[in-house]
């Protein structure tokens, strides 16, 4: 007599497991009901707004002037609002870059780090950088830049700054875990955000990389700021997908980004 027959004959719960779909439902039911609707909506919309957008020149007049604009901003804004050195952005077709800055704290420290460092890097490449309205995005313009050069320049900044969240790296890109710096105690357990061991290793490596660069900058007598505790840095990076501290930040704010990058390059 098969188990299904026994179940039909009323032998009760002991033979409840003949049905794989039902077994799987029982196995899955132990997960608590989530509440993700509102939080993911807000984070998704911020992510959408804050994607780096490369806007190429499309207007003939602008082409005639040899002006190309590079806009890192929300795509639904009509244009850039000149700020800082006053570069004027030109609208056009948008090309998304594979950077996803889903910060949960727009206007916060992580966003400030992102804005300061991209401004410094692009200015170092002779772009004029402007803020975009109150969105927090950036627009950069450069006379006579060629098609493809903008892509290359943005890639160069990405590589130099090493800002992208490392938890999305492929396995082949995962850095090895190095010795832990004396100034920061790595947390034994990072319970927030469900971090597993592999994530901790990658985030630890990022902290270690920044730590080495910071020490290098101090050695080179370049501007630095106080390294945050490892646990704070890692949690912030996991939460915001952007770091709230960066070894080049102080140098960039003092106009010495190029010196810092040249003296103590980061490894992408």
């Amino acid at each position, binding site marked *: 007599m*098969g*188990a*299904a027959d*026994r*179940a039909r004959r009323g032998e009760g*719960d*002991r*033979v*409840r*497991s*003949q*049905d*794989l*779909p039902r*077994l*799987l*439902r*029982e*196995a*899955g*039911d*132990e*997960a*608590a*009901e*989530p*509440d*993700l*609707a*509102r*939080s*993911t*909506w*807000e*984070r*998704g*919309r911020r*992510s*959408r707004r804050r*994607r780096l957008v490369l806007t190429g020149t499309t207007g003939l007049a602008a082409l005639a002037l040899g002006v190309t604009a590079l806009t890192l901003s929300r795509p639904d804004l009509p244009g850039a609002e000149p700020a800082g050195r006053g570069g004027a952005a030109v609208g056009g077709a948008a090309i998304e870059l594979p950077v996803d800055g*889903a910060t949960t704290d727009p206007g916060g420290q992580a966003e400030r780090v992102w804005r300061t460092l991209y401004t410094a890097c692009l200015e170092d490449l002779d772009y004029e950088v402007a803020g975009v309205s109150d969105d927090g995005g950036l627009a950069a313009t450069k006379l006579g830049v060629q098609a493809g050069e903008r892509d290359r320049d943005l890639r160069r900044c990405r590589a130099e700054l090493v800002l992208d969240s490392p938890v999305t790296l*492929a*396995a082949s890109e*995962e850095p090895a875990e190095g010795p832990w710096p004396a100034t920061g105690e790595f947390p034994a357990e990072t319970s927030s*955000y*469900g971090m*597993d*061991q*592999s994530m901790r290793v990658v985030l630890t490596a990022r902290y270690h990389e920044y730590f080495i660069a910071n020490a290098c900058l101090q050695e080179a007598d370049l501007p630095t700021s106080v390294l945050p505790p490892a646990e704070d840095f890692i949690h912030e990076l996991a939460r915001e997908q952007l770091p709230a501290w960066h070894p080049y930040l102080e140098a960039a704010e003092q106009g010495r980004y190029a010196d810092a990058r040249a003296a103590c390059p980061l490894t992408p």
Partner: protein
Amino acid sequence: MPGPTGDDYVAFVTARQGPLLRAAYLICGDEHLAHDLLQDALIKLASRWERLRDEAPEAYVRRILYRDAISRWRRTRRERLVDQHDPGGELARLRTREPVEGWVEGAHVRQALLLLPPRQRAVVVLRYYEDLSEADIATTLGISRGTVKSQASDAMTTLRGLLPEVEGWVPRIVRGEERGTA
């Protein structure tokens, strides 16, 4: 167009987040990780909601969820392989625990699933938990229908070995496969 508060998105997620989380839990075996996987997939959906809301948002989320789960497993497979060589690990416990006639608890099923390669695990969950057809499974995972069949067959062979005390469910699975390919 959705309003600034995304009411239609919120309604969709509120209705579907439970089943999606449970599927993620079955795939990865860790509730926190399942939560993170689903959260990441939903954030991607929210950022593309205008484009996806009238198409198949759940299929999109499922595709992201399952593929991310498999990718994640591949990134961490070395650690997991080491764990599986632990003589006191899940495999040993599954094979040595006292059999109880016809009784399999949810935890045992999850443990057995975790011993499957990730794609086989995904196929099992998509087929028998989410009740998707072979064609839909193939689309979700980005593989051929033939691969779906072979992965399902291999998975069932392994599960039969891991949970031998479960009588009667293998014929039921065979019938399910026949129904799914009809």
